[in-house]
């Protein structure tokens, strides 16, 4: 068992205790995951990181090569998927197209032994709880994306699972619906008393919905912790990009962090040994000519590699002494006459950097 970022994992009698190992020809998933009842854990990572494989292994749809899987002290490894107390919300919901919303939700209780009438009563309660009582008789193709998502959640919860798995639960929705459904899903997840594991590549979904993030890259956990901790202390380029920070690794000596490749960065924190330095793109100021009056100690000569709009700002990708991203207003970008290939000077105040031990 590992100890990462102050979260100690140990054998739990309640909740989820898993070590998932799945070997594929070109890919190996090796992931330790624990969660307490009532906790919502997000597996966050880029496409192809193995998040969905992990979810399928938890559901029993992909067999484990080795490792173990315990839920509330019961071993699930050898249990077929239909016997596991696990509910799954699939990415594109996979609502049965030939059944009404009500019968989709009643499907689970029916398979778990309820008779038709009982199952329908239970399903109606769940649909009502999701605010979908009016759509009970609708076939999935007549439901909007948000409604279909809620039916999928109701269907997964109707079997009374001890582990709820959600695969990219908001990915299939458009931006407007997403905002609304995200808030609803957050409410349902916070009411859910057992373990919930959700998989997403969207940091906002992860941070809004989850109590704890587990960042997965190349089939391994690279960092885990609370959303705010991870947002402030990213440990890989992937997370730094996700949370919108420039991230560098080097060796700290006092107020200076000398980077493994490239120049040194002056910081306010006093550290020694391996360290990360992070600063937001908005902390970077750009000049066409070398600034003379600037008090910034961190001054680098760079070249514009690319420009893109980012909200109401311009985000500039810079190469040169220190590769970094900088945000500036459209007006500033026009005044600086920025274009790919343009030479610029970049500065960052020490007070806007953040250094922490690696």
């Amino acid at each position, binding site marked *: 068992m590992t100890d990462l970022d102050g979260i100690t994992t140990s054998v739990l009698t309640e909740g989820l205790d898993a070590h998932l190992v799945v070997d594929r020809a070109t890919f190996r998933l090796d992931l330790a995951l624990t969660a307490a009842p009532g906790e919502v854990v997000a597996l966050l990572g880029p496409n192809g990181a193995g998040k969905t494989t992990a979810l399928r292994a938890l*559901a029993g*749809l992909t067999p484990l090569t080795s490792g173990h899987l315990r839920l509330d002290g019961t071993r699930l490894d050898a249990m077929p*998927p239909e016997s596991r107390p696990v509910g799954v919300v699939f990415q594109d919901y996979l609502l049965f197209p030939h059944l009404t919303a009500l019968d989709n939700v009643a*499907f689970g209780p029916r398979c778990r032994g309820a008779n038709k009438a009982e199952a329908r009563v239970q399903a109606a309660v769940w649909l009502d709880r999701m605010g979908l009582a009016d759509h009970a008789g609708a076939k999935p193709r007549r439901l909007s994306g948000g409604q279909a998502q809620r039916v999928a959640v109701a269907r997964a919860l109707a079997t009374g699972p001890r582990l709820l798995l959600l695969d990219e639960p908001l990915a299939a929705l458009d931006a407007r619906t997403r905002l609304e459904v995200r808030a609803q899903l957050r409410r349902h997840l916070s009411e859910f008393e057992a373990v919930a594991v959700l998989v997403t590549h969207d940091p906002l979904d992860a941070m809004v919905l989850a109590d704890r993030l587990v960042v997965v890259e190349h089939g391994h956990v690279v960092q885990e912790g609370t959303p705010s901790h991870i947002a402030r202390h990213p440990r890989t380029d992937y997370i730094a990009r996700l949370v919108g920070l420039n991230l560098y690794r080097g060796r700290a000596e006092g107020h200076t962090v000398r980077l493994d490749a490239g120049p040194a960065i002056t910081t306010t924190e006093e550290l020694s040994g391996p360290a990360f330095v992070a600063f937001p793109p908005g902390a970077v100021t750009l000049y066409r000519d070398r600034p003379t009056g600037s008090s910034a100690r961190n001054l680098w000569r760079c070249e514009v590699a690319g420009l893109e709009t980012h909200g109401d700002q311009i985000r500039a990708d810079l190469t040169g002494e220190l590769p970094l991203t900088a945000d500036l207003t459209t007006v500033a970008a026009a005044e600086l006459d920025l274009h790919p290939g343009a030479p610029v000077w970049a500065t960052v105040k020490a007070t806007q950097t953040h250094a922490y031990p690696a």
Partner: protein
Amino acid sequence: MTDTLESRPRRDRHRDRHRGRTRTAPIPLLVPALVGLAFLLLPLIALLVRAPWRSLPEQLTSAEVWEALRLSLLCATAATVLSLVVGVPLAWLLARTWFPGRGFVRALVTLPLVLPPVVGGVALLLAFGRNGVIGQWLDSWFGITLPFTTTGVVLAETFVAMPFLVISVEGTLRAADPRYEEAATTLGASRFTAFRRVTLPLIAPGIAAGAVLAWARALGEFGATITFAGNFPGRTQTMPLAVYLALQNDPAAAIALSLVLLAVSIAVLAALRDRWMTAS
């Protein structure tokens, strides 16, 4: 691809729908095409021209015709039901599972599609005939005789028609998303329950099309039937056999019977038109 199509003006898109289609065809293509079409149509037209329209009502109401038609419909339907009962599970096995020699089994299943039906009839005799590999035991243990019985007709038709159903259902299964079965599994359904309550309704259109196809093939079956079941009016003489027999001594009756089969074929095409006639 879609993006570029969407972004083009409407007029261009309209033209795209008819891409590669012109109103004029070069003579070296047009002439053989028309000859081919005429070759397919002329026999049918001849059938209609020479039909004894006047005596047709009388022909079609004769006891022999009704007997043959009743037997044909009964046997073709029984063969279709039998094909469904064993053919759909076989299609599922081929589409959803892996086992050594699966490709070989698949080839075996499709063999009756290309095998001359007469050979199928001979093979059935050697298996289920009174002295056949299995038939001798059926006869001595249970007193069951299959050849030259109505059951024999059903078996012969099933042998020839079932591959059509299996191939059609297997194709539909392969096109269906297997993740629906996985979703059912996570809800507590066993594999069989998932098949019965989720997969089967999803592939119902494919099963229906396969069944219609198998039924039509069974209805027209001649070679295997006459070889394995013989030609006994009222017992094993189906419509195609009756047509063949009638042609020897009463051509008018043969034409009348043929017209009935033609009508049935057109009805089958109409039933399947959404699936095949709209290939463009």
